[in-house]
């Protein structure tokens, strides 16, 4: 975990259009990161443009998981976009793997 502070973590919240759900996802991610005291840049992308974006971690719903197969980027899927507990658990476990 030592290097994490030096290099900013990039998280991509991905939804169908990049207009609505992705933004809700971003809000929950940011709340959890704040609670965990983790600095990261969280951006929103639609599922098509997300493929050409650079990121350390992608957060999305199970519908879009398949789109990132083979990308080499860690993907987590959430069931409830506004459940900070679910998000916190999944982000913590994803960061351990990074």
């Amino acid at each position, binding site marked *: 975990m030592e290097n994490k502070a030096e290099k900013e973590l990039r998280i991509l919240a991905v*939804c*169908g*259009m*990049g*207009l*609505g*759900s992705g*933004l*809700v*996802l971003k*809000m*929950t991610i940011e*709340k959890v990161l704040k609670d965990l005291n983790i600095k990261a840049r969280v951006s929103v992308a639609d*599922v098509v443009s997300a493929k050409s974006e650079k990121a350390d971690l992608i957060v999305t*719903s*199970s*519908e*879009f998981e398949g789109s990132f197969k083979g990308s080499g980027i860690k993907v987590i899927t959430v*069931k*409830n*976009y*506004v*459940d*900070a507990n679910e998000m916190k658990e999944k982000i913590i476990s994803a960061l351990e793997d990074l």
Partner: protein
Amino acid sequence: MENTEENKKEKLLRLSDLIKPNLILLDLEAKDREDAIMLGCSVLIDDGAVTKEYCELILKSLVENGPYFVIAPHFALSHAKPINNCVKRVAMSFLRLKTPVIFGNKENDPVDIIITLATPDSKIHINALAELSEMLMVEETWKVLREGSKEEILKLVEHFSEE
């Protein structure tokens, strides 16, 4: 200060600017998910915020992208990316169904609360949607949304809308 149009645009819209009393529909019946989406969207047509084409775009997205906008248990954030100027202004409606309907999202089905969002561009709605997210993250919110009266829902919305 001379460009008042610009100043107006920069004013942040609050959640309570979007969810107005006439856009809250409680305890209606819907046959299926298409019917539910049309119910939530039609009130935005009546309000002059969108044309029928926007509602059809949501239905099309549902078929093409799947029911991904069912983003929490029993809750859908119904929306689409507008084309041909079919969204006249940013708006949000709230629909509560008497009987939940299946959207095909096995993790969060069946759905009884549908918020329909219409936004003409990718920025203007951000503040209000952020306030909505804050509201939905609070567990007590769901009790009010499911059991509350229109007045109680409006009060909740007002609470999460910044002064």
